[in-house]
């Protein structure tokens, strides 16, 4: 979090510096649209960032400024000098607050309302009042901390410096050239025979060089995790605000992306997430009505494909209403009805990237102001990427982003076909299989080859045919090695090659447009001996051979899987969530049980003896999975499991992946905690038994209507000692005189039940010994008898 905060401060300050000039220019000419836009973008970004850092004051200020500026942008308000000064005052305040945040201090209270009020149009009297009421408070604050409102120079030690990326690029390029020069030299040395005086220093040079190469690579690269890390919180907060339930699923967090690129896509992705939750995913009730799970799924999947990263963000919400979008476009005057009529569905969908268009009927704090997708697309295009949207009504929306990755190291698998070596990004390869040992799993349908992978038939293509065209001689599949390729969309296919050689880290360089046009290659790289090697573009190859169905997102596949499991004989797999427990062991839990994935702070966990609970959203949830392990410091990852009524929080050290397990599990050995043991990539993975788990932690469910009980009003003992017991037994204590309730408790009263009322009576006595043989009363400190009596009466009452 500290890292993110530092980023936020640095980014805000950088934007402040950059917008300094804009602000002055705008002041000079308030009608300058370009300046206005850039200032608007600044406050909008600050607002967005505050949203997930929880700086309510900053957010309020930026939101207010944004509102006012939006009015001006929409032409509903003329910019005047009063407005300009008010906006400038807010921007100054944002700068001061940012300084305070960096110094770790609190910015003095007060003053915000006056700043916000100054943005209001007209009504100077009210303004004056507000200012007047606000002023003493801020003065008082000012007095209390002499001169605190003035920005203090921060004296924090700088542990990082910001470098221009160009410089890093240059260094990186230099280093990769050095490596190749070293390789060249190595070859020459080998050719020249043994030269002890040279070999030693050369070895040293090599070691140093690989170290330098590693660190320069790390300098620029950042795992996408770093970016994904901020989303669960954002999603949680947004869905809480909007009364929705959203589960986030990440895949490919280990894909590395240029640091600058990570920063460039952060805002666009935040926008997409906001939109997905605000407009895409429905409220739980609507979802249930539509026959979906009440928890929406927001899925991020990243893949490296050559010199590009493909990133898919999909939700299983309501999809985009293209007709409404088109109607809005007409309304906003962006298109004529005739133009709309001539558009196909795709073109209509692309309208969401149009500036000044929003499907939101109401402007919320979350999204829907029309800066959004047009800015998102502009930013993605600016960095040389592309964005596409696909949406199925009622089923969800997916955004497909492709981001360039020009100077990147990637781990690649090298394969050989027809004697030539090719590389493919390792992240695509799920598994390598030798066709010879899997002959029974190969099958033909028509002219197509299929491979049975984990109980599913997947299409097979031979690299040889991909590259050299269909051959006249039928391919000998038994001699092929099969690579199971998993695309970013989650679809699988098998690629047949002659040999799988090795995996190595390669520097990918871009290739000429004419070669890109083949749709087969994503880049090139040089082998150690200096020979060039082509890098295969797996998604493009898959698309070329019709192996991708674009609209088919993973969420609906899961629904299909679910339908199959409910069906009779067609059961093939169990979809489960794979995780690593605190003890470091990998286990799986059925995905259906997982309500959502949560990250919480250590302090929210309360463990005392056998009782372990966790506070999430003001609710106590039983914690499991911590037994016999020490809790991690800082943040903890949780899987929130639900059986529909009650909830359990399973603490894990790492959420790994959603996987498909074979239906026929191995029976567990005596350990009934597990439903069975599955083999995943050769490792045994126990599958948690949901029934046992929830049975063990089942709590008596409090009935919605609890029986009522009347206590003697004059007794202090009854109030202080008895009442809690009665409540614990499930009764509601009555105070109202009018009603007798379901039970009356009498202390030291007449032991004979009165015939006047039908209300059961429970008699208690202060003496240890009964007064006589007919005395059915209970000694008031005989807890066991008292509880038993209460429970018995409650059962009778219920019956």
């Amino acid at each position, binding site marked *: 979090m500290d890292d993110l905060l530092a980023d936020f401060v640095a980014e805000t300050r950088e934007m402040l510096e950059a917008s300094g000039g804009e602000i002055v220019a705008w002041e000079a000419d308030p009608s300058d649209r370009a300046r206005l836009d850039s200032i608007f973008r600044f406050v909008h970004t600050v607002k967005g960032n505050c949203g997930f850092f929880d700086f309510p004051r900053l957010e309020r200020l930026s939101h207010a400024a944004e509102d006012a500026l939006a009015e001006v942008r929409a032409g509903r308000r003329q910019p005047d000098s009063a407005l300009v000064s008010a906006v400038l005052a807010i921007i100054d305040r944002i700068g001061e607050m940012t300084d305070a945040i960096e110094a770790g201090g609190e910015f003095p209270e007060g003053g915000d309302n006056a700043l916000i009020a100054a943005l209001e149009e007209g009504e100077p009297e009210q303004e004056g009042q507000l200012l007047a009421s606000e002023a003493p408070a801020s003065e008082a604050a000012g007095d209390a901390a002499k001169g605190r409102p003035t920005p203090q120079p921060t004296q924090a030690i700088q542990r990082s410096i910001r470098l221009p990326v160009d410089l890093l690029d240059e260094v990186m390029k230099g280093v990769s050239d050095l490596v190749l020069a070293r390789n060249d030299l190595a070859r020459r040395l080998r050719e020249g025979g043994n030269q002890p005086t040279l070999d030693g220093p050369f070895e040293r040079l090599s070691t140093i060089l690989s170290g330098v190469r590693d660190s320069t690579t790390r300098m620029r690269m950042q795992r996408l995790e770093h970016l994904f890390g901020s989303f669960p919180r954002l999603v949680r907060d947004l869905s809480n605000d909007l009364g929705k339930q959203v589960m986030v699923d990440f895949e490919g967090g280990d894909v590395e992306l240029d640091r600058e690129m990570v920063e460039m896509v952060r805002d666009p992705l935040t926008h997409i997430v906001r939109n997905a939750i605000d407009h895409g995913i429905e409220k739980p009730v609507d979802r249930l009505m539509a026959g979906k799970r009440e928890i929406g799924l927001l899925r991020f999947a990243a893949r490296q494909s050559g010199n590009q990263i493909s990133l898919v963000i999909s939700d299983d919400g309501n999809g985009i209403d293209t007709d409404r979008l088109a109607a809005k476009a007409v309304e906003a005057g962006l298109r004529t009805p005739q133009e709309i009529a001539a558009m196909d569905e795709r073109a209509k969908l692309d309208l969401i990237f149009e500036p000044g268009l929003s499907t939101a009927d109401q402007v919320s704090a979350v999204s829907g102001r029309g800066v959004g997708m047009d800015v998102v697309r502009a930013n993605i295009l600016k960095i040389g990427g592309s964005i596409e949207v696909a949406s199925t009504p009622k089923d969800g929306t997916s955004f497909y982003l492709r981001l360039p990755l020009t100077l990147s190291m990637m781990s690649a698998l090298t394969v050989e076909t027809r004697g030539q070596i090719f590389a493919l990004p390792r992240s695509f390869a799920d598994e390598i299989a030798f066709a010879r040992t899997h002959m029974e799993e190969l099958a033909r349908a028509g002219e197509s080859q299929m491979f049975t992978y984990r109980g599913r038939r997947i299409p097979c293509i031979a690299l040889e045919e991909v590259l050299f065209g269909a051959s006249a001689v039928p391919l000998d599949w038994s001699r092929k090695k099969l690579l199971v390729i998993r695309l970013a969309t989650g679809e699988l296919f098998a690629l047949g090659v002659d040999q799988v050689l090795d995996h190595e880290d390669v520097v990918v360089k*871009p290739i000429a*447009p004419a070669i890109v046009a083949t749709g087969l290659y994503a880049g090139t790289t040089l082998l150690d001996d200096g020979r060039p090697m082509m890098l295969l573009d797996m998604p493009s190859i898959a698309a070329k051979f019709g192996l991708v169905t674009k609209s088919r997102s993973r969420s609906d596949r899961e629904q299909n899987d679910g339908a199959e499991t409910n069906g009779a004989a067609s059961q093939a797999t169990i979809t489960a969530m794979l995780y690593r427990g605190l003890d470091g062991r990998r286990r799986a839990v059925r995905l259906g049980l997982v309500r959502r994935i949560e990250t919480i702070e250590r302090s929210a966990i309360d463990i005392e003896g056998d009782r372990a609970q966790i506070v999430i959203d003001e609710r106590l949830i039983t914690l499991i999975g911590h037994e016999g392990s020490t809790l991690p410091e800082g943040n903890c990852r949780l899987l929130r499991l639900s059986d529909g009524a009650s909830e359990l929080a399973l603490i894990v050290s790492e959420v790994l992946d959603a996987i498909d397990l074979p239906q026929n599990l191995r029976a567990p050995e005596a350990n009934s905690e597990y439903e069975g043991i599955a083999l995943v990539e050769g490792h045994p993975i126990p599958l948690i038994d949901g029934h046992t788990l929830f049975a063990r932690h089942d709590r008596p469910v409090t009935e919605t209507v609890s029986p009522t009980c009347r206590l003697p009003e004059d007794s202090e003992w009854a109030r202080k000692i008895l009442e809690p017991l009665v409540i614990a037994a499930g009764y509601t204590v009555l105070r109202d005189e009018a009603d007798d309730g379901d039970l009356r408790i009498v202390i030291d009263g007449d032991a004979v039940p009165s015939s006047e009322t039908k209300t059961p009576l429970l008699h208690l006595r202060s003496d240890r010994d009964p007064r006589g043989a007919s005395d059915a009363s209970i000694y008031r400190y005989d807890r066991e008898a008292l509880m038993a009596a209460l429970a018995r009466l409650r059962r009778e009452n219920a019956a």
Partner: protein
Amino acid sequence: MTSLMLLCTIAGRQAAIPAHAIRSVIEIDAVEPIPGTPPWIVGLTALRSQALTVVDCRVALGFESAGDPVGSRAAVIALDGHLYALVVDDASDVEEIEGDIQQLRGGFGRQWADAALGMVETPRGPAIILDVPALLGLDQSEAA
């Protein structure tokens, strides 16, 4: 008007490539073929840790290939951040060429029509100036 041009022969004809586009002239050492590409792309060759796309100018123009390009001379061109090696029959020196680019009524022939900017007079007779982007199938022909 004076300009520097690399004089070369392509398919037995005199041709000239504007020298400002040329990085160097190399002798093709080894080429890694790239399956699936148009026939005029011979493959990739490495030049000091950089991969060059080897283009057979004969084929690109629509003539028969002269065969294996290994040992042939090639002009190294940088275009839009990509490096190409244009394989020619032979390349002589860079020469200072006097005179304007001229057109010829009736054109230079079917093969040359799309890839020629015009012709210039050289000490060895007229030479056709290659439109490199057009030759490489890149639409935006900057020189035109």
